[in-house]
């Protein structure tokens, strides 16, 4: 680029890759909704392999089917590279007789591919991937077959767009989590939600009030979009009901949402507290959450035991305020059962978690420790943690 400006086709490629990235699908795990398409295509066209592939500027990522160790390929070596560049249905009856393909490793080498058909998958008008067929025998694709492949491509495009809806919703959900620490520099306050993929029913929130720092951590029953919808509803109610103290706030939230919780059959466990920043006095109420620990400066710990049932599971048992004190050197940590289940989900799990917190203390350090755990264990549940650390004087 001697004149310092990108070439026009580089601009087009940048736009194409931007559309691809907006789907948030690169490097993601197998999904039945795509596997269903490739299975159906393989059967319909009687080919050994049908695939949904996504192509960035340098790589081909096989979204479906996924073979361990063979999901990412150098783009230039693949058939689909041509489909993306030409942006139209490509049918190759015999790859050995087509100079665009005869040199490709899959033809000349191992897999012995002879037939290929690739239908570009477009998002925002950009070809971001392909639905393609491979065979080890030469063959043709008649007009009816081409129409069928086109229709299946439209199906795959709808699934790609669904991914973006979810991706945007995930961004919104994360934007609703607080990031600043309003109690600095006297307390370190932080929260995190791992493994940061998909929608979920966990949330946390905090804000400064004239009486101190109001902290909330909640876990809504279930997973995915349904749980996320109720999480947003509960968050809004907790933040807006008038209340003199934590127990009153939880009762008022339960009352406000009673019909909604009844109608959906969903419940939520909540830890809600008010921390007096001058004295460290903590007033809290627990709606069936039960997963809050105070790790003392000397390394000992105590659980802030529950005092009420989850929101949505009212059996005429009231909630009450309880007290604790966060002294200099202490850490308050509240977490969801995703973390508990990493350690087996029983009483010994609480001990194990307490010792991890005691070894790290500072919220940022706790985050790194839990991140390492999550990476090692690949849990199937979200893990949400809020930690408040009061440094020694």
């Amino acid at each position, binding site marked *: 680029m001697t004149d310092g400006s990108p070439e026009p086709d580089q601009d087009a490629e940048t736009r194409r890759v931007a559309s691809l990235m907006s789907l948030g699908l690169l490097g993601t795990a197998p999904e039945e909704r795509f596997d269903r398409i490739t299975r159906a295509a393989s059967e319909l066209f009687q080919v050994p392999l049908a695939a949904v592939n996504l192509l960035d500027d340098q790589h081909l990522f096989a979204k479906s089917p996924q073979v361990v160790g063979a999901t990412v390929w150098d783009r230039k070596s693949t058939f689909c590279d041509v489909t993306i560049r030409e942006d139209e249905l490509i049918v190759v009856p015999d790859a050995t007789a087509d100079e665009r393909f005869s040199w490709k490793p899959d033809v000349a080498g191992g897999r012995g591919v002879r037939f290929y058909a690739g239908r570009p998958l477009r998002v925002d008008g950009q070809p971001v991937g392909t639905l393609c067929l491979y065979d080890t025998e030469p063959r043709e694709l008649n007009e009816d077959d081409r129409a069928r492949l086109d229709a299946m491509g439209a199906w795959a495009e709808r699934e790609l767009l669904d991914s973006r809806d979810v991706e945007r919703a995930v961004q919104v959900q994360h934007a609703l989590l607080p990031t600043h620490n309003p109690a600095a520099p006297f307390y370190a306050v932080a929260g995190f939600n791992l493994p940061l993929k998909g929608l979920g029913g966990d949330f946390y929130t905090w804000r400064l009030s004239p009486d101190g720092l109001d902290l909330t951590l909640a876990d809504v*029953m279930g997973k995915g979009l349904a749980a996320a919808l109720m999480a947003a509803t509960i968050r809004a109610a907790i933040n807006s009901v008038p209340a003199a103290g934590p127990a009153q706030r939880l009762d008022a939230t339960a009352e406000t949402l009673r019909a909604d919780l009844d109608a959906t059959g969903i*419940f939520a466990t909540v830890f809600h507290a008010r921390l007096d920043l001058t004295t460290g006095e903590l007033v809290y109420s627990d709606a069936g959450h039960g997963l809050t620990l105070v790790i003392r400066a000397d390394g000992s710990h105590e659980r802030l035991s529950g005092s009420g049932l989850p929101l949505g599971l009212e059996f005429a048992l009231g909630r009450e305020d309880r007290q604790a004190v966060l002294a200099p050197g202490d850490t308050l940590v509240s977490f969801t059962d995703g973390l508990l289940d990493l350690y087996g989900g*029983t009483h010994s799990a609480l001990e194990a978690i307490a010792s991890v917190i005691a070894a790290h203390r500072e919220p940022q350090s706790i985050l790194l420790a839990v991140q390492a755990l999550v990476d090692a264990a690949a849990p199937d549940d979200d893990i949400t943690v809020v930690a408040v650390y009061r440094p020694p004087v």
Partner: protein
Amino acid sequence: MIFELDECVGYIALAAKGRLNMVAAPELRAAVDAAIGAGHRRIVLDFTHTDFMDSSGLGALVGCLKVARQAGGDVRIANVGAQVRMVLELTGLDRVLAPYSSVEEAFRDA
């Protein structure tokens, strides 16, 4: 999730086998709804072979309890393992659904 029915004198025992999670939760509800539909009022859920319950499972369990009580009956649980017991304790629901040490014990007082 697999259920085994055992009709006893004064109650019916439902043995659930497998993880009580988002997949199994509706199945548990359906099994208990069917038992109530068939006229049973006292239902014991035998958790001997259920070593894991998540929040969806807990939701189903409470749903079963509500349906049974509305019908004038009750759901009780027996042979609960450590993880399930922990979920009940943490959520405070052990006060509503106290675990019994055996199926026979569950309705002894009734």
